[in-house]
Every structure is written in C-alpha cells, then in structure tokens.
C-alpha cells in the first residue's frame, strides 16, 4: 500500500463495505432518534407530532426504569463472573492431555450452537419445571421440596441459562490462550520453586489476562441485549425485566414507539457507560 495509486485503489475497493456498514448502523440509529422525539402510537392514532423530550422524561421517571437497569447489570455481571471463572477452570482441564480430547472439546463447544430460544425452552421445560423438570426429580429424589426456579430464583435462573450458553465461548478463547503459553515458562517456574497454585497465579493468570479482557468485552456487548431467554421464560416478570425487555414492552405491548425509542437511546448510553468502565478497568491489558 505504498504508492498513491494503490492507496486510492484500496479506498475505492473498501467503499461498498463502508457504505453498507454505515447504512446498517446509521439508518436504524437515526430512525430511533427520530421516533424518540415523536408521539407515535400505531394503533391509537399513529403519528401525533413532535413532543420534544417528553418521551425521555417519561421513560426515565417510570417506576420500571431503574429496576430494569439494575437487573440488566446483575445479569451481565453474574454471567461474566460465572463464565470467566468456570471458563478458566474448564480451559485448564481441557488443556490436560487425555483420551478423546478432540471429541470432548467439540462437546464443550456444543451449547454455543444451540439457539438462545431453544436453549431457554429446554432449560425451562426440561430442567427447571417444578413438576416435570430434571432438577425437580433430583430434589424429590433427596426428599426435598422442588424449587420453583423461574418464579422464586428468577434472576439466578436466567443467569444460569445465559451462562450455560456463553461458557463455551469463554472456554474456547481461554483454552487457545492457555495453549499459547510457553511450557518452558511453567518449567522455569517449577525450577524456581513455585508450587502449582503459585504457578497458576503468577504465570498462567497473567498470561490469560488479555484473553480474559477480550472475553469480557465481547460478552458484555452481547449480554446487554439478551432478549430471547427472558421472552420464553419469565416474560419479564419476577424482576427479570431488563432494559432491552422494557423497551420491547413499550414498543410492542404498549404500542408506544416514541417511548420505546427514547428507551433505546438510553440503552445506547448505558452500553457506552459500561464500555467506558470496562475499558478503563481492563483496557490497559490490550496494549503492551
């Protein structure tokens, strides 16, 4: 890419992709902003004109707003903690030489291929159902009262379902990171008198820090917008109404597009706040 000619050729070649990406992102963003300043009730009169910041004020002052932000953050945080802790442990385990390694690794990745809707339905009906679920049978086998997971421990249940989906992703990335660790470093640490836990703490974990950062950032982006898992299980009841789900309810259940759009803008702001925080905390791992 040295000459003037090749540079302009490169720019020309990249144009379609850039235009497409910009359109993809800008059009929905601009439409959201447009609707958020309108009173727009599709089934109750349609477009009722500009209302300024009224939608924003109403969305923020609604009693459901702050609880939804809170449950969003709890779900994201909980899933991140579970997937990273267990991801590191699973990756360490899968890194050990064993018989049938290839098959086991593929099996571990499998949950990632299951669609969110399907996995949530499977968990809801086959595991967490208080009458027929496997967990209910397990509880009964030990003579205990079956737990009504989705109504009594609703947030935890959703965290569990989502973690199950995302654990393979974390494991996979962390496993490749562990495999890239120079075994001579571990041997050197062994010669230096470091017991296994110190080797983990001083050598393996620092080596994984960058991979953990990546898992953290990517998962956060996707977890902020989880929807299907809530839609097919609790429908947003029992304190599981996340910001995403609240917006859905405003737009489709209340048929208030303007209010929902204002919520969408808040969701963008929330995502950016979370992203800035994460970058501050872990971003330094990405350079160097």
């Amino acid at each position, binding site marked *: 890419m040295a000459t003037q000619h090749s540079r302009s050729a490169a720019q020309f070649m990249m144009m379609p992709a850039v235009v497409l990406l910009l359109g993809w992102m800008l059009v929905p963003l601009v439409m959201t902003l447009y609707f958020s300043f309108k009173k727009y009730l599709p089934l109750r009169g349609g477009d009722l004109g500009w209302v300024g910041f009224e939608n924003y004020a109403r969305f923020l002052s609604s009693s459901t707003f702050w609880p939804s932000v809170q449950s969003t953050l709890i779900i994201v945080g909980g899933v991140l903690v579970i997937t990273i802790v267990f991801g590191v442990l699973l990756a360490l385990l899968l890194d050990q030489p064993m018989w049938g390694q290839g098959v086991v690794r593929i099996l571990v990745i499998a949950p990632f291929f299951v669609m969110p809707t399907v996995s949530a339905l499977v968990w809801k009906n086959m595991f967490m159902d208080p009458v027929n679920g496997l967990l209910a049978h397990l509880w009964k086998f030990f003579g205990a009262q079956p737990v009504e997971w989705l109504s009594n421990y609703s947030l935890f249940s959703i965290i569990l379902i989502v973690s199950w989906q995302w654990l393979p992703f974390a494991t996979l990335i962390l496993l490749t990171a562990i495999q890239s660790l120079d075994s*001579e470093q571990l*041997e050197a640490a*062994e*010669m*230096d*008198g*470091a017991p296994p836990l110190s080797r983990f703490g*001083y050598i393996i974990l620092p080596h994984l820090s960058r991979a953990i950062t990546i898992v953290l950032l990517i998962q956060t982006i996707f977890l902020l917008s989880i929807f299907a898992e809530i839609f097919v299980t609790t429908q947003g009841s029992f304190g599981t109404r996340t910001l995403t789900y609240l917006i859905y309810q405003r737009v489709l259940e209340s048929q208030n597009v303007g209010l929902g759009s204002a919520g969408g803008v808040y969701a963008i702001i929330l995502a950016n706040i979370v992203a800035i925080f994460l970058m501050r905390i872990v971003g330094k791992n990405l350079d160097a």
Partner: protein
Amino acid sequence: MGNITLSQVTKTFGDVEVIPPLDLQINDGEFVVFVGPSGCGKSTLLRLIAGLEDVTSGKIEIDGQNATELPPARRGLAMVFQSYALYPHMTVRKNIAFPLKMAKMSEAEIKKRVDHAASILNLSDYIDRRPGQLSGGQRQRVAIGRAIVREPAAFLFDEPLSNLDAALRVGMRLEISELHKRLATTMVYVTHDQVEAMTMADKIVVLRAGNIEQVGSPLELYRTPRNKFVAGFIGSPTMNLIEGPEAQKHGAHTIGIRPEHIEVSASDGPWQGVVGVAEHLGSDTFFHIHDSGLADPMTVRASGEVSFRHGDRIYMTPRTDLIHKFDTQGQRIA
C-alpha cells in the same frame, strides 16, 4: 557443593529408548558440556538431571543425596532455558526476584541479592523494564540472573546461546565462562555447537543416540578421539576420514587426518588433487580438494593467504605422526 552422579540412568518415551543405561560423574566446580547432534538425547539428559523428566530407571545423586524422586525445586539446581523462559508480565527485577519470593525470603534480602546479581550481569540499567523491551543478549543475562540469585548447587544450561546472533554468541560465551570462573559453581551445559563445547568446557561429554561416546577434556578429545564419531564431531572443519588402500598402508580400516595437519604445496607431496572451493577467511584458507582418490572432498587448512584457484592442481603432505587410525568398528587403534 555440586557433585552430580548418574548411575545406570535410563529414559524411555513409550517404546523408544532415548537414554540407554548411562553412568556419569560430574564433579564440584566443573564446567561440563554435553555435545552431540540434534536428537542425541543431550537435552533429555539435562532435563533428567533437572527433574523436569522422570527417569525410567537408575539413580541420580546430587551431593551424595539421592535426588531421583525429588521434585525440581528441591534439587537445588537452577536452569537457563533455550527460550530464556522469562516471565513476560514481570519486570527484570521481579523476574530475578521470583525464585527468592517463592523461597519466602525477606524483602530486604531479596533486594540485596537482586541488586548484586544485576550488577554482576550489567543489568542495573534495565532493571525496571520488561523482557519484551530487551534485546536477545539482555534477556539471556536476565535468565542467568534469575539462576544465580538462588545460589544453586549447579547451573543447567539448555542451548542458551542458540537464539543469539553470531557476534553476540561469542560475547555471551565469554561472559558465561567468566561467570563460571568467578562463581566456581558446577555448570552443566548442553549444546550442539562443538565450538562452544571446545571453548567453554572443562569436560566434554560427547553423546550419540543417548550413548556416551567419550568423556574428556577438550584437548583430549581433539588429540585422541576414541572413535570415528568423536573424531568427526570434534574439530572445525571436520577431520578427513579416508578409507581404502591409503588407510591399509597405515594398517587401519579408516584413517583420519585433520585439515590443519596437512601441508599444501604447488609442486610436490604424496597426495594430490584438484582445488574445488577455496574459503578465504584472511587468517586461514580452507580448500576443498577433489579427485584425490582419498576422501571427497578433502578439506585442508592453510595458514594466511594462499593463492590457489579453482581447478588448480594441489599437492598435500600429511603429518604422519598426527594420523588417527580406526578399525572396522570405527574404534581407535592405539
């Protein structure tokens, strides 16, 4: 103290016997070099001593104590790895301090020892940098620093110079030899480079396929190689090995003559041939001589600048007192 004794040590990986039963004595303060072609088991042997591999059978004693079953950390040995194996996220200071920290030494003592090691190795200017910001030679010195702070019974080096460029290698070679003289600690050094072996060792162990071919001082090995393999391996350029009628004249199956023990002349000599490639190094000139009816090519060293050209006829006079004779098994005769 750093006596290491291996008795009847063997190592097999699956069905492959890497080290057949092997005995070796390493005395305190010695600089022992394991040398051999790649895959000869020299690194495996070092790792057995370090405890990074378990012996299949046999016994390893360090300072009279049976260390066969001891974990690496408790053998009192320090190792410098081929890749240096520095901890990339720690500064030079923390890297060097790591073994001391693991030994739960006091902060003050750690600082004292690290500063001392850094000054010995000229690392003081880089002490707060990370390995990624250092050059190859500096990383090598950090790795050595990490080894010396522990004041081990012996140092183990696994091809430590193979990742350095030629000029740096010569420099580090001197530094390691210097360090050995200063610390007077046992050092076991693995290399495939016979020049490193010759220049650094008190005692060279030549290995082939896990077998010890010969143990001795560099000059012993140079003067009286026990067999054809050692004869061909030690010395640079390698010895000319001649079979056939010329060898029978000397009552041997094979005779060997080093390139530096042959005189060349343009007019007369018992052997003759045609000059192929001539390598002019300034101080020496190496000729590769073809069509001599002996070995092809014959390598000959002439001191200084000698003006033979490609295709010239050349006459050679071997120094008959320095001819090595080997029997059909390749063993030395007398």
